[in-house]
């Protein structure tokens, strides 16, 4: 018989520990963490504005001055998250509640009080540096903003990695002449955001509707199933097109629409699981013990039925990233924001193949999807108590 389990360890903590005991899940987590760091610190990693300049003995930081409210909110949320994870000894629920409130507060204050200059001229720093107006300059590791099209460099366009002699573009440049590496880093924000939020919305709706359908069955199930069928018949692409036409191009609308059109799969999974679980003797015993409905649904049924959902969710995140890529490819994506799909779009133009435009964004999409799948798989095994501790 295996060892007893420490009573002080909660279910979630044990599952997390077991998930990341696996090498494959760690690799997946490492990739996603890297992306997260890229996303949070994007302005500091790739920016045309210098980090610090000394001009006639006076120090200034154009980079900080040009930070947008979004950048600041993201940074604040990240630092707060790290802080709460390590410092606090509050309970999980309290910590999450505190976190959500603090993040909201940060984003509201950032939107109210931070107003970066409307007009940005990226070229001025390079020109000033050329005529040696600065005493010294500290630049970001990649001294190009994603939307710095380098008009000062003359007729730039698609350039191979490290093709130009004076300028160093590690991954080449895209059609308008902007640095590809810089755009890749900034695009990780969209990839992560759309994956998490769209899947989160879909899972939330799907689990609730599917759970009710599976537990109550009867007419609730009938109505729910018709709802699922209706949503499965809605063509996501046309819905997005319509919304783009009415409300303009917005990342948030894209997230919400991908979310509310893809919950039906989760609902079906959860419904099937709940129908099966309802007949399980431990659920019957829980009903016979007179436990409240909340406990039956969320303690006895959901943790036992969540495994297929988590695997589906890892694919869901991947497919949301792909959906965004497809939209961008079709020209329905965001106009000027960098995104991996939009970059892929430029790989083949007028019958020539620009390999760096396919290789780097394609690789990033591939690794991200792969990382989510690895983590989903490890999570599924960790949730199943039969796969560890022997039997």
């Amino acid at each position, binding site marked *: *018989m*295996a060892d*007893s*389990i*420490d*009573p002080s360890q909660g*279910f979630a903590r044990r599952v997390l520990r077991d998930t990341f005991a696996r090498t494959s899940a760690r690799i997946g987590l490492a990739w996603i963490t890297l992306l997260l760091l890229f996303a949070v610190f994007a302005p500091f990693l790739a920016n045309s504005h210098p980090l610090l300049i000394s001009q006639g003995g006076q120090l200034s930081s154009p980079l900080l001055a040009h930070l947008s409210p979004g950048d600041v909110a993201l940074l604040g949320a990240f630092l707060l998250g790290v802080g709460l994870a390590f410092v606090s000894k509050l309970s999980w629920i309290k910590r999450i509640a505190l976190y959500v409130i603090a993040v909201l507060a940060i984003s509201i204050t950032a939107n109210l009080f931070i107003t970066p200059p409307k007009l940005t001229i990226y070229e001025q720093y390079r020109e000033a540096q050329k005529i040696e107006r600065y005493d010294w300059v500290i630049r970001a590791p990649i001294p190009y903003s994603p939307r710095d099209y380098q008009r000062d460099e003359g007729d730039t366009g698609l350039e191979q990695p490290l093709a130009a002699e004076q300028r160093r573009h590690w991954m080449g440049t895209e059609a308008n002449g902007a640095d590809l590496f810089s755009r890749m880093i900034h695009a990780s924000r969209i990839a992560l955001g759309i994956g998490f939020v769209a899947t989160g919305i879909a899972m939330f709706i799907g689990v609730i509707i599917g759970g009710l359908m599976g537990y109550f069955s009867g007419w609730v199930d009938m109505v729910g199933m018709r709802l699922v069928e209706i949503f499965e018949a809605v063509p996501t692409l046309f819905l997005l097109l319509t919304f783009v036409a009415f409300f303009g191009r917005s990342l948030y609308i894209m997230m919400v629409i991908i979310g509310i059109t893809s919950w039906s799969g989760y609902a079906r999974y959860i419904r099937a699981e709940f129908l099966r679980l309802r007949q*399980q*003797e*431990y*659920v*019957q*015993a*829980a*009903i*016979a*013990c*007179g*436990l*409240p409905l909340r*406990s039956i649904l969320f*303690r*006895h049924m959901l*943790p*036992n039925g969540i495994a297929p959902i988590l695997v589906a969710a890892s694919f869901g995140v991947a497919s949301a990233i792909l959906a965004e890529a497809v939209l961008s490819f079709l020209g329905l994506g965001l106009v000027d924001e960098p995104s991996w799909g939009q970059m892929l779009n430029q790989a083949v133009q007028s019958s020539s193949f620009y390999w760096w435009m396919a290789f780097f964004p394609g690789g990033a999409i591939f690794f991200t999807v792969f990382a989510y799948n690895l983590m989903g798989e490890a999570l599924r095994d960790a949730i199943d*108590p*039969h796969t560890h*501790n*022997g*039997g």
Partner: protein
Amino acid sequence: MLLKVEQLSTHLNTRAKRVKAVEDVSFEIDRGETFCLVGESGSGKSITALSIMQLLPADICSHPSGRILFDHRHDDGRIESVDILQQSESSLQTIRGARIAMIFQEPMTSLNPVFTIGEQITEALQLHRPETSLREARERAIDALRQVQIPSPELKVDEFPHRLSGGQRQRAMIAMAMACEPDLLIADEPTTALDVTVQAEILRLMKELQTKTGAGILLITHDFGVVAQMADRLAVMQHGRIVESGPASQLIRQPQHPYTQKLLASLPENLPKADRKSSKSAKVVVEVQNLEVHFPVKKGLFRRTVDHVRAVDGVDLTVKAGQILALVGESGCGKTTLGRAILRLTEPTGGKVMFEGTDITAMQRRHMQSFRRSMQVVFQDPLSSLNPRLTIATALIEPMQAHGIGADKDERIARAEQLLQQVQLTADSLWRYPHQFSGGQRQRIGIARALSVDPTFIVCDEVTSALDVSVQAEILQLLLELRDERDLALLFITHNIGVVEYLSDEMAVMLDGRIVERGKTADVISSPQADYTKKLLAAVPRVKF
């Protein structure tokens, strides 16, 4: 000797460890003889059978020692003694199915659902006798079905397995096995999944076929009743070894090895009956009046209700405090549905359930919650009766919390420890997960959970049918103790007459949703009135010589 197993060892190698499933097992089977291997689950009896058939996956199993000598009768009538362990896969194929046939426990899954019965029999025939024509093979298939006494074999030969009842399916399996006239038939728990009346028919059929063909039978079972009826000689296995073997009549009457003695003593009919003081109060706890549970059968586009399945059809019962009422019946008779309807886990469609004088049949969910505390249930399957995600502590404490028993968490944990002691488990079991326990232990935890809310009435739904006899004996004794201690009223649902005799004060026999006979257990067993009860009691295999 038809089959001679000499010092056979079978080891199963998994990635982490090596399991010595069978160690140093020797026995012999002659033509026309029935040899029984008896043992509890995990004793290695099935692995022995699979080793003889060489059906274990070659990459995980190894035979460090031993020989399996089999008299291989070639097609030209020449008989040669071969060691099965040394045979190549191709020569094994001429033995398997043709000379040694096997039937399995679960008739549901051992027939291929996408082929008709006839196709499955003729396939085996044509494989081993390629010269047989299709028409001839079909004739022989019908013959084989006639031999196993399936009614109208000319029609049944073209049926798919799902159209046959469990008993008929097992007959078809036997027909398939016997079609090639094997010299040895290995039957691995052939009747465990069947009702007693069907079991009796199948066993009689196997005996008849044996006298007709002179085949040797290796019968694997855990049921001493079956052994007593079938075996010429038997061997008792424990932990992969044979602890005792000999002629059946002698071994059952005078077991020598302590393990055999313990097994026989654990049979419900051999358990010592404690004199029990009559119940303090004869208060009626549960009274069921004309209870009906009808499930609608819906058909067509508009899901109109065309008919009802009458699972429970007008049942009257009373259970008194301190009394055990056994509800007996074969599978599909509605006994489980009745138990669930009394607890309102299934909604009754008619009649009344009175609990301590209150009608709970039409009670609202909210009011029902407080009655749930007094009515509990223990289920059959120890695998699925506990939530695999929760520790035992949570499983026991949550019901207490829901009903406000115990002031705080510490007090509830103390109570949970007490409960575990009552069901003879140690207190450190609290922090384990269900899969870390054996079936019997899990069943004890299920009982502890039912007791956690201090019920006055418990429905026990086949609580011992998935357990080995020795474990079953412990659980039955535990239930009796708890009953006396707490003056519990128990509704004990079972198909095992031996258990009924040992445990219950009164019994009710159920057939097709109705109760056909009711009365004091001793009276019903000694002088059954209804025809069905008589048939049922006659079919029970008993260990008597």
